[in-house]
């Protein structure tokens, strides 16, 4: 799962993934308009592939990239669990602070 979060930590990679989430694209289409060199794009795509977030199909000389959402499901689950954890802690913190204030009088 760390590969997922690492992959998503870079804004260019997030942009690439957003475009691929909309439709399969060639490397050139996915990278259009981005201010990154070809080798940087290659590096970003490799990181996304290593995280299992995209798959590559070869059609002749063109590589078509396909978004794979499965790793995100695990990452969303981690976030949801920890968000619940902190939400309940915030409730308890509120109750604790109120108790402390009451005992100050």
């Amino acid at each position, binding site marked *: 799962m760390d590969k997922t979060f690492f992959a998503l930590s870079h804004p260019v990679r997030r942009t690439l993934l957003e475009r691929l989430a909309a439709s399969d694209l060639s490397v050139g289409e996915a990278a259009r308009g981005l201010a990154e060199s070809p080798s940087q794009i290659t590096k970003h795509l490799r990181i996304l592939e290593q995280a299992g977030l995209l798959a590559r199909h070869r059609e002749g000389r063109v590589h078509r990239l396909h978004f794979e959402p499965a790793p*995100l499901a695990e990452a969303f689950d981690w976030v949801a669990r920890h968000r619940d954890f902190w939400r309940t802690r915030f409730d*308890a913190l509120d109750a604790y602070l109120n108790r402390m204030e009451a005992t100050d009088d």
Partner: protein
Amino acid sequence: MTDTAADTLQLELQRVFAHPRERVFDAWTRPEALAAWMGPTEAIRAESVCVDLREGGHYRIEFVEAGEPRKRVEGTYLTVRRPERLMFTWVWAPPFPDAGVETTVIVDFSEVPGGTRVHLRHLRFATPAVCELHLAGWNGTLDKFARRLEHGLP
């Protein structure tokens, strides 16, 4: 009591507490306070709280639930800036599912009308470079992914 809107993959919570900032900050750092609110229910208590409150110092909190193995979380303080910021690593010990994975928690305390806003971010991938990118914001770009998963799209 609000969560940020763009909270799909960035774990971010904000809430205003009707108390002065120093008091809220101290609730996050005093062992007896942490023991009181980190275990939020009657059934789950937080105990064995150890805190070495300085940058580089360690903390440890154990959660005790009847019939369950003890769960322990521990970490290192990265930033201790009373009363405005607390940043620390957060690592669950086995047998918790994410055991051994180092994550980072950043808690910012700011004075607002009505009390203190506590802004918490819990980051999964904890290198300083990534923290910088996270702090620059995810800006909600992953909402579309969430919707795709909801609709079961391949």
